[in-house]
């Protein structure tokens, strides 16, 4: 219990420190100015979200291989946390885009594939609510999770190679690749990435504990019924 509180406290402190660094330590971007400071939060959250989806994929594979419920708990936890991260990315993205591009949304490769990623994991969680029996639910959702994760690079490259030929507004920033960034900027950015990963890890642990308690409760309830 105390370990969880310390973990959560550290994660929150890191996130606050990252925000402080983004506002007061990172230098002002030349063309975009203040609004660019969203980048540290926006892109770091995107990285954390992608990482959690990778965790979900590994947990899915492990479930199919080992069939232990704990991998199922881990995969649903990381899918939900990843979805929260991508939701934040999809909300902060337009807030950033509006003053810079003059529009809230454009069907650019990165935006579109993030949106498809979001949709895939929404359907993953939806599928979980529609299968009653725990073992079946775990197996079916693990398999769908594997298919969905394999689809992600295909979605990204198909949209990138074939959908960006049409004329579009000039797109700048948000690359997150770190290349061409000012050294202080990239330090602040990687600190933000670390902070968001800690936050995501903390949320996954909490969600995992919830899922574990749920299955304990199911077990006890069945025991009560049999008596």
């Amino acid at each position, binding site marked *: 219990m105390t370990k969880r509180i310390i973990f959560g406290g550290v994660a929150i402190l890191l*996130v606050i420190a990252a*925000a402080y660094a983004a506002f007061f330590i990172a230098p002002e971007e030349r063309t975009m*100015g*203040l*609004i660019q*400071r*969203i980048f540290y*939060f*926006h892109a770091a*959250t995107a990285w954390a979200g992608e990482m959690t989806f990778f965790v979900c994929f590994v947990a899915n594979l492990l479930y199919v291989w080992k069939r232990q419920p704990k991998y199922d708990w881990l995969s649903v936890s990381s899918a*939900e*946390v990843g979805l*929260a991260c991508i*939701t*934040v990315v999809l*909300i*902060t993205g337009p*807030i*950033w885009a*509006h*003053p810079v591009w003059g529009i809230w949304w454009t069907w650019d490769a990165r935006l579109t594939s993030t949106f498809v990623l979001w949709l895939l994991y929404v359907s993953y969680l939806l599928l979980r609510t529609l299968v009653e029996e725990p073992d079946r639910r775990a197996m079916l959702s693990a398999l769908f999770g594997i298919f969905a994760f394999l689809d992600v690079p295909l979605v990204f490259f198909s949209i990138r190679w074939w959908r960006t030929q049409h004329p579009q507004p000039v797109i700048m920033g948000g690359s997150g690749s770190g290349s061409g960034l000012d050294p202080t900027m990239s330090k602040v950015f990687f600190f933000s990435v670390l902070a968001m990963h800690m*936050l995501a890890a903390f*949320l996954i642990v*909490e*969600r995992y*504990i*919830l899922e574990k*308690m*749920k299955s*304990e*409760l199911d077990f*006890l*309830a069945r*025991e*009560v019924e049999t*008596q």
Partner: protein
Amino acid sequence: MKNLDSVFAAYVVGWGVFFVFYLTIAKRISNLRAELDRLKNTLPRAK
């Protein structure tokens, strides 16, 4: 200080999403814990 409101809104909304997500988890955990305690109390009595 152009666009300060946008940056501010982005951070507040982003943190808000995580906070609300955490709250729902915490609430569900405390509900489950109460339920678990209740069941554990009924079990020995039934034996």
